[in-house]
């Protein structure tokens, strides 16, 4: 159970980040690897609570007290086995998850404090630090990286094949998690991906400074070695691709994991001016570090405005800064959240508080409570964004020659014909992810709307268990 009193003896220390100047000069990951001795100490801070609220806070239900204790005891390979049993890809959650487990940690009950990160590498920029939460996310990353480095992550192809075939449409995290688990249960899992390469948003949405793509490729290699087949460049339901009916006829089950890529639009005069781009179109090119940014979306020297204060807005901000934008303003419609939990937002719920992302540490200006009213153009090109400050009512004109729309997503772009949708346009399923069509399942964002990667992993895993059970009946 970790070290008795460990959380008193040692304070929470999150892995450091590289200096901002260095970060902005390349596309590599922002965080630095932690000294294993520090990881061990941090794992020793876990108290093995009678009620581990972290474990409840985690959508995957990861056995956090168990793997923390194993790390504390130096039993890293067992820690990986434990973690991997519930989490197909801890190297992803260890980098990308917003870690609702940590805000639910019993050591995070005390009010959050704003203070400079202990490492000081963020240039002294205050960041939200949960005063004492166990560094679960860093622990996951450390365990996963150790496992890859030590060669513990080996392909585990099934010993027996069931003869059943499952198609998984979409190679994002949900689809990959489902395929991996179904394959290991002995079914043939074929993943169909419309894009040229697999990974979904992991590859085409998340910038390298948060996830270098060799991490994804490393995992894909394991899955393929286990027997998962990934067919890229195949758009199911498109004129040049297989139809949904065909897919269903050829497989014992079909899992739809095509995500929720339909972007929320900005409905103001001037939207059609040149210079405005959707976040996903903007991010698609540059986060492939191997490829230089496409000229069309290069914002070097430009005055950039990112509309949307969420994670993807932050990814756009960090990308724009790395491209050498002259200025970046990130605009959020909602007012700035409070620094601390409100009484109605008590622990262990996800804290609705002011946060600063790594991209926001790096530069740019943040605006809150700001409504865009119209875009101003010159010769068909965007030159300024006009808006109203919601608190004062003041009208504001912000010079802008590159506008990136990161306003969130509204649902799937295409769904199998005839499948029942819910009121939000997502694929409707029952508790075991079955849709209205026999043998057809819906998981991840296409089913629950745009959400966290940890939910994608959880649904992929749980749907695989449900489909496996159905195929064995």
């Amino acid at each position, binding site marked *: 159970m970790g070290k008795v009193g460990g959380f008193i003896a040692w304070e929470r220390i999150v892995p450091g980040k590289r200096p901002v100047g260095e970060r902005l000069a390349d596309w590599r990951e922002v965080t630095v690897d932690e000294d294993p001795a520090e990881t061990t100490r941090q794992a020793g801070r876990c108290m093995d*609570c009678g009620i581990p609220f972290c474990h*409840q806070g985690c959508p995957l239900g990861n056995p956090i007290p168990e793997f923390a204790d194993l790390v504390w005891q130096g039993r890293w390979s067992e820690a990986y086995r434990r973690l991997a049993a519930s989490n197909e890809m801890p190297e992803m959650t260890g980098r990308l998850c917003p870690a609702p487990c940590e805000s639910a940690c019993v050591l995070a009950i005390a009010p959050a404090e704003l203070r400079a990160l202990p490492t000081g590498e963020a240039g002294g920029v205050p960041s939200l630090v949960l005063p004492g939460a166990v560094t679960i996310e860093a622990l996951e990353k450390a365990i996963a990286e150790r496992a890859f480095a030590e060669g513990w992550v080996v392909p585990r192809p099934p010993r027996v094949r069931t003869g059943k075939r499952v198609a998984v449409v979409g190679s994002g995290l949900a689809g990959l998690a489902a395929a991996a688990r179904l394959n290991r249960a002995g079914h043939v899992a074929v993943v169909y991906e419309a894009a040229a390469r697999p990974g979904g948003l992991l590859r085409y949405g998340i910038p390298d400074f948060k996830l270098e793509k060799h991490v994804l490729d490393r995992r894909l290699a394991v899955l393929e070695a286990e027997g998962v087949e990934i067919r890229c460049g195949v758009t199911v339901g498109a004129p040049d691709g297989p139809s949904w009916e065909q897919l269903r006829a050829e497989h014992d089950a079909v899992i739809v994991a095509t995500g929720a890529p339909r972007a929320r639009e900005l409905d103001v005069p001037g939207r059609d001016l040149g210079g405005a781009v959707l976040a996903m179109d903007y991010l698609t090119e540059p986060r492939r570090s191997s490829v230089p940014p496409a000229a069309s979306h290069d914002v070097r020297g430009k005055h950039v405005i990112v509309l949307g204060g969420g994670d993807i807005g932050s990814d756009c901000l960090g990308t724009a800064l790395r491209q050498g934008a002259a200025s970046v303003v990130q605009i959020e419609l909602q007012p700035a959240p409070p620094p601390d939990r409100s009484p109605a937002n008590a622990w*262990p719920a996800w804290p609705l508080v002011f946060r600063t992302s790594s991209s926001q540490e790096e530069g740019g200006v943040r605006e809150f409570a700001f409504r865009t009213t119209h875009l101003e153009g010159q010769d068909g090109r965007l030159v300024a964004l006009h808006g109203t400050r919601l608190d004062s009512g003041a009208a504001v004109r912000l010079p802008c020659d590159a506008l990136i729309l990161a306003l969130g997503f509204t649902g799937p772009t295409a769904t199998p014909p005839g499948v029942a949708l819910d009121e939000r346009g997502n694929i409707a399923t029952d508790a075991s992810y079955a849709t209205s069509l026999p043998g057809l399942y819906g998981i991840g964002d296409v089913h629950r709307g745009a959400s966290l990667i940890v939910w994608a992993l959880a649904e992929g895993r749980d749907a695989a268990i449900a489909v496996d059970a159905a195929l064995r009946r």
Partner: protein
Amino acid sequence: MHDIALLVGYGAAAVNPYLALDTVTSLRADRARYVQALEDGLLKVMSKNGISTVQSYRGAQIFEAVGLDAELVARWFTGTPTRIGGIGLAEPGDEARVRHARGFAPGADGLPVGGLYRWRRDGELHKWNPATVATLQDAVRRADRTRFDEFERLCDDEERALVTLRGLWTIDEPAAVAIPLEEVEPVAAIVARFVTGAMSFGSISAEAHETLAIAMNRLGGRSNSGEGGEEAHRFEVDANGDSRRSAIKQIASGRFGVTAHYLVNADDLQIKIAQGAKPGEGGQLPGAKIDERIAKARSSTPGVTLISPPPHHDIYSIEDLAQLVYDLTAVNPRARVSVKLVSEAGVGTIAAGVAKTHAACVVIAGYEGGTGAAPLSSLKHAGLPWELGLAEAQHVLVENRLRDRVRLQVDGGLRTSRDVIVAALLGGEEFGMATASLVATGCVMLRKCHLNTCSVGIATQDPALRAKYTGTAEDVVTYFTFVAEGVRRHLARLGARTLGELVGHADRLRVRPLAHAKAARLDFRGVRGVPAHHVALPRSFARAQPWDLADHLDHELLRRADATISGGAPVAIALPVQNSHRAVGTLLSGEIARRTGARGLPDGAITVALAGSAGQSLGAFLVSGVTLALAGDANDYVGKGMSGGRIVVTPPAGARFAPESNVIIGNVALYGATGGELFANGLAGERFAVRNSGARAVVEGIGDHGCEYMTGGVVVVLGPVGRNFAAGMSGGTAYVFDPAQTVRALTNMDLVELGAIGDDSDAWLVRELIAEHVRRTRSPLGGRLLDHWEAMASRFVKVLPTDYKRVLAARRARPASAVHLPVAG
């Protein structure tokens, strides 16, 4: 462990857990350690049941089954009580198949965590889980009735998942009988029936302990001191009118801090016979949690672990219990006396006995709830649901026409208004919520109470962690108010204007249709409902029958010492005494404590010369300023719980026998004493100075089990000691005159070391005590020792607890200020 305990308990002479041993081997673990753990565990199980040898335990069948079919029990566990029927052999077989399938499923990634002792998402259901804890805390902090309704719904839904007996029942609330809510008694009348659990100051922090007291005093309910004493400043009312005084003062086997002053500052004196969550075990407080402040309240030494003995050393029978009830009534006639029992088969008989001891209330504690410090071996398979114990106590008390003499209180995992109603229908009149009230103050069930690392500042004495405590009395008041409001709504639906009307009406409970295969054959006929031929008998409390103290000798003492107690001149009183005079000096001491506080009177203020044979409990709970000088002899319990004053016992004038070879006081003298002096010119009986924490005594010989569990004070024995001397002794010092060198063989060496009288301060102390003994008693033996002191001093053996010695040495090594742990307030 349970498997082994069960097999041996049902008669196995040997057990070969070969699969477990193979598993241990496959884990590359040490088989010897596994076997050792099983042996230690079995020993613990036996000790909890008061059994000393495997020969006695083997085949003793001290089990009760809950949920096993009577036929199955008759065939395989013949003679074991099983009161509600239940499963046969088929159901466990099916479950084994399910487990096997789960373990060997293709693609299975190891076995699930299980979550038997710690909540896990896909594991065993725990009543306290993230949802119930968070919802209750959110509801009380924001005083949000809707959220509390949600909490109750979560609880009730859980119970329907077959985790409690009450969850198997519905309450019969036909629409026809409902009355308007306005006609139901007010919240204040209902919360007066609520109590919090017995959690000691020490197990929980001062802040948490006082929060509960303030809240219950605001509500008109009662909080419970637990068995750790209470700081005297809490008996004064705060400037804002709040009171931090626990209305219930517990008298447990450890008798920590049980003084006359403690006892008179109570409305309810609760004798804890046992604890539902860990039957057979006393409290344990690890040394790390004992700082200066805690130690002071308990009259113990900071840093030295405290272990409460499993039994009360003054109670081995119902008659002994009656004597303690009498003693407590004498020291504080204004308080009622309650007796806490645990739910078990036969508790009805015990409850009937308790009703005859003139106690006013019987508490039935169930196995749910309980401390996070309870050992794992007590969390499962120990104790029984309160539903069974309460129903049995109600039955037996009604049948024996004793029910109207006592109130029935129930605790053990009660959380909701529904729980209260079910308990009332089964016979409960008062209701304890312990864990729920702590959760309301911020407890999140870390289950680390024994480690002093409670990160929410409740079960810790670490000042840094205590600073994190955020609980408020308002939150606790809100919790109990919400429960009472829920009770009112139930009452309206049940057509009852008061909760009292429902007490004992178990016929209003219905068994829910139970779909689960394991619940199909349950049979509650034996639990619910009073038998028809007893319907006319009283089913609830009507009138108290406390001890009649009219003939108590102390009335005369009080009359003659009244002016002295009020600050007048010292007084000397001479009275004859006979053995029907019990607890002489106790009523007087209670009155002095009430009027003068913890200080008592100056030494020599009241001197009572008694002549004759004193009855039981001479000088029980005696206070400073009172000297009882008895010429004659005394029965058992001399100086029980004394906190000051002096008892001197000498043979009657003109006696021609040698005092040092004749018994002059009975058994269990000085049990739980916290101060004062005893000089006995003769031999004492067994269990002398057990759990003494501050008294000084000189006696000329003692029986078996002397100085057991002692934590402080000084005992000088000028003659023989019996067997098992100094067992469990963790503090204080004993000096035994041992010319024949028999003490080592008679001493239980687990916690103590033997030595000679060491430095000058030792010699001075012993010599002075003997000199005082001779002055007070004219002891011939004492005189002879003093006459040849230089030669005699070396024949004394000094008995010192190892742990205590270490702490004393550490204190001497450091300046006094550094020893004091930083304590707020």
